């Protein structure tokens, strides 16, 4: 039940954030600092989420098959594979390493 509340709250916040952009006066656009913070936040959060999903298990830093996914995804991206292919490559890498007996 509380999960639903967080989902709905996240949806409301996300929508209001988008709408806010349409309602503020155009001169706010000239504020380079605001756009720079928004851009840095996007990069920082995605980088953080990438390593968290690779190395974190609860409060522990662990090294397991997910590292194989990170490397495989990186190679796929360097080869300019589309998003869905990158995701599938990441899954296959972890699945194969587990099949080979790694954690």
């Amino acid at each position, binding site marked *: 039940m509380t999960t639903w509340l967080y989902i709905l*709250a996240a949806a409301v*916040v996300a929508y209001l954030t*988008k709408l806010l*952009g349409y309602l503020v006066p155009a001169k706010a656009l000239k504020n380079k600092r605001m756009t720079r913070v928004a851009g840095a936040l*996007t990069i920082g959060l995605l980088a953080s989420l990438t390593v968290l999903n690779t190395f974190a298990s609860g409060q522990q830093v662990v090294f397991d098959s997910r590292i194989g996914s990170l490397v*495989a995804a990186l190679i796929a991206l360097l080869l300019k594979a589309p998003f869905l292919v990158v995701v599938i490559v990441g899954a296959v890498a972890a699945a194969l390493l587990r099949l080979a007996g790694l954690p």
Partner: protein
Amino acid sequence: MKFWRSPAARTGASVAIATGLYGVSFGALGVTSGLDVWQTMALSLLLFSGGSQFAFIGVLAGGGSGGAALGSAALLGIRNAVYGMQLNALLRPRGWLRLGAAHVTIDESMATASAQTDPAEQKRAFWVTGIGIFLLWNVFTALGALLGNAIGDPKAWGLDGAAVAAFLALLWPRLKSREPEAIAVACAVVTVIVVPFVPPGIPVLVAAVVAAVWGLFGVGRADEGLEPDVEPHEASPS
């Protein structure tokens, strides 16, 4: 039909198909993160912003609280306010159209609209991309969620590895120069360092603070990290 012969509508449609398809990965990861099928579908329908949706379930999957999931999703959505300002200046939507435009304001609709120069084409690109992705993203989220529910052990299928790949793929097109790369590395390192010391979900927020401070005092281009290249890459208007 004349509308579909316009380069903007075609580009919009191809971007919508490419993006909508990977809703299947969000759906599958949503249910393996602990949400049920309806909750996963609600995120695509109501939150509708890929990065924020993946952040929400990524934090939950790592054992983070609902509050931390909400926080990271909200922070990752801030760039949409910047897109909203730019699109408002570009398209000037009026009345209730503005409410609809806000909902479909995402990386891809922003990128395809701003790639056009003619105002009519900008409008076509924005709406075709935005509505197209909204429809397909929701259909494929449902499909992915049912699929994720049907398979047994998500780890045996490498779905946790799929999440790693998804986040890297979301980050990748934004790393266009030295400064974003430096921000990414700094935030990644900070995250790994704080993991053992704070509850799950909090490391992302610590990284957000580092990024925000960097953005405040940084000297790079003002649009760094915004408007990534969107798929399909070759679909630039001819």
